[in-house]
């Protein structure tokens, strides 16, 4: 537990808490980006550079922008309408669920073999090559299934967009 880890964790938790507690939707999004950055920082701290960069590329470059488009299509962005309550009606339910999830995760990380391997020792070729080789050897079937799924989703999106222009 060094100072960098604690600072990063504090920033990450702060981002997460702000993301669910702020009223303005755009502020929530920016807090969420702070949270994503914190997670990327944790990856970098654990020497998982590749995951850290991918976290920034995917979550900040793509997911956050997608959420942004969604927010721009909604009303009440400033959060001035509706009831102003710090906690929702069923807050105890949320606390219960998160406590159960946290307990489950702690139990799993205690049990699994991953914990013993935690400072991941990459082979001499580096983490990126390790990941690449594993993806096209041991995990090639899941990879291909994922590729087909994503291609289908892409084509589906194009088809949906095409039909709309024909109707006009």
């Amino acid at each position, binding site marked *: 537990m060094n100072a960098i880890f604690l600072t990063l964790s504090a920033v990450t938790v702060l981002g997460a808490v702000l993301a669910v507690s702020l009223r303005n939707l755009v502020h929530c999004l920016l807090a969420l980006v702070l949270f994503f950055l914190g997670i990327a920082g944790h990856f970098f701290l654990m020497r998982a550079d590749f995951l850290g960069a991918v976290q920034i590329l995917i979550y*900040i*470059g793509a997911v956050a922008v997608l959420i942004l*488009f969604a927010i721009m299509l909604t009303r009440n962005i400033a959060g001035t309408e509706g009831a102003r309550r710090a906690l929702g009606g069923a807050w105890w339910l949320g606390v219960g669920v998160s406590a159960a999830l946290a307990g489950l995760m702690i139990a799993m990380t205690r049990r699994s073999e991953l914990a013993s391997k935690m400072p991941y020792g990459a082979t001499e070729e580096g983490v990126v090559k390790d990941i690449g080789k594993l993806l096209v050897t041991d995990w090639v079937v899941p990879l291909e299934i994922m590729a087909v799924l994503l291609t289908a989703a892409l084509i589906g999106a194009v088809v949906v967009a095409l039909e709309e222009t024909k109707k006009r």
Partner: protein
Amino acid sequence: MPDGVALTLSVLLPIGIVLGVFLTIFALLTWAERKALGRIQNRLGPNRVGPFGLFQPIADALKLLTKEDIVPQAADKVVHFLAPVVTVAPAFLILAVVPVAKGFVPVDLNIGVLFALAVSTASVLALFMAGWASHNKFSLLGAMRAVAQVVSYEVPMVLAAVVVLMAAGTLSSVGIVEAQRGFGGWFICKPWGLVGFVIFQLCAMAEVARTPFDLPEAESEIVAGYHTEYSGFKFALFQMGEYVAALTMGGITVTMFLGGYLGPGSDLPKIGWLVSACWFFAKLGIIIIINIWARGTWPRVRVDQLLGFAWKMLLPLSLVNIVAMALWHFAPNKIAGWLVSAALLVAAIFGLVKINAGKAFEKRSYRFIS
């Protein structure tokens, strides 16, 4: 010297050198751009402050520093303040992985290029923050244009970089440069490299919103786009972020396609670092000249042309480019590889131009004009 001090110095010194050099180039670049644009438009450009107007950047900086900082009353104060800061940060972060000379790179990450691409996409949030926080219609329009543009051009840009990674077999920026050794070894000298370079250069220009892709700040349409409501030093920070981003993206382009710091004499024993640095900055200069030239001579594209160009032209072409790279890699000998990949790419370019041409010159119909 105690170890702690030496370690701190070895970390801080390269950062200091790189920041100093690139900030000087940034100041000179603003002058060079105005001068070159002036010549293109048959004007003289800045010529009052110092010899040939060379001190113009200093005068501009002083003016912007002393200007009043105006924040609109309806603006979202915190986000409005944060936006310029967030604009500048990613531009400088990319510098960390650009190898400017032989054996001189601030941080030799083993995922260097991926890091640069990831960080450069984060700049879109800053543009959106600026546009949204200003509470101004033109700002918001500019911001939405910026978001759509950067998201669209990010895809072909990453795909154009893929061929380089395939050829070099590494993500490290130094590794990519070292993979381009030898006569004709620069990736731009190969058919897939040339196409990749053009795609990457166009996408880089779109990513940092330079003319002809400067729709987020199109003066003739939406005042100044996302930075309409900024003045004084915050405006200067936006300008700086934009220019430094253009410079650093140019540096990444040079690293990936133009052989980085390699060139005749870059391996000499004593002065190799100086020669290689000269090579790097000479190549960067060529990229900058291309940028200024394009800005001075190309008209700004329309929004539909901009997005159509990314999705219908650059994206399929970059996918074909990856196939061409694979054919090159598995070809029995060099000549066959050249012929096959070049033929595929030429056919793809002609095909895509043909497919897209019909749409571009359609007769436009207007609803309220018969």
